[in-house]
């Protein structure tokens, strides 16, 4: 069975700092996808960034980037120049395969607070 582990239940940084959220996963599959989702307080969950396992290049989306270490089964999220609006729950998620109904396995979540 695939599992996803986020070892940091809560994190807190000052505005404009860089913060890294950790995620590890376990799978015997070779073809899979990894995601970071963000859930702001009282707002809907949205996709932050995705990574295909067959791509060696780390994905980036503006201030968000990942450090994907396939051999170590690690997928961390780095937020640069953090902003107050980055305060949210962050979930790492994993999906096997390409086709099908796209079942996601989620980690436990990390509550990130950006302080002014």
């Amino acid at each position: 069975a695939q599992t996803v582990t986020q070892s940091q239940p809560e994190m807190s940084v000052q505005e404009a700092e860089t913060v890294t959220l950790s995620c590890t996963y376990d799978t015997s599959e070779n073809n899979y996808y990894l995601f970071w989702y963000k859930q702001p307080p009282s707002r809907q969950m949205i996709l932050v960034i995705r990574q295909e396992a067959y791509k060696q290049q780390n994905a980036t989306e503006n201030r968000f980037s990942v450090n994907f270490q396939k051999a170590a089964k690690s997928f961390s999220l780095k937020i640069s120049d953090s902003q107050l609006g980055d305060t949210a729950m962050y979930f790492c998620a994993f999906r096997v395969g390409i086709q099908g109904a796209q079942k996601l396995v989620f980690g436990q979540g990390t509550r990130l607070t950006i302080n002014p």
Partner: protein
Amino acid sequence: DVKVTQSSRYLVKRTGEKVFLECVQDMDHENMFWYRQDPGLGLRLIYFSYDVKMKEKGDIPEGYSVSREKKERFSLILESASTNQTSMYLCASSPFSGGGHMGTDTQYFGPGTRLTVL
């Protein structure tokens, strides 16, 4: 923009009641999902559906059933609510991912329904 709506933001029910949670998406997505979110456990998949009238069990289907009579609507049913079903329930949808197109695999989430069973 994709819109996923859920019938209620907050719901309070009594033990033993039959509870219906409704989810509607407006983007003609084939796939729909129901999750429950609990502190320290993240999101866990209850049921999902990849087509009208089709359903598959997720990781924690016990005590729940689902219905998908129309493509845009996916209902979660608690046949006899219990206190351990107090939770946040999230619905999501996504388009069909055949052909391996990464751009089609994003799940779009609704705002959630916080259900309290007394």
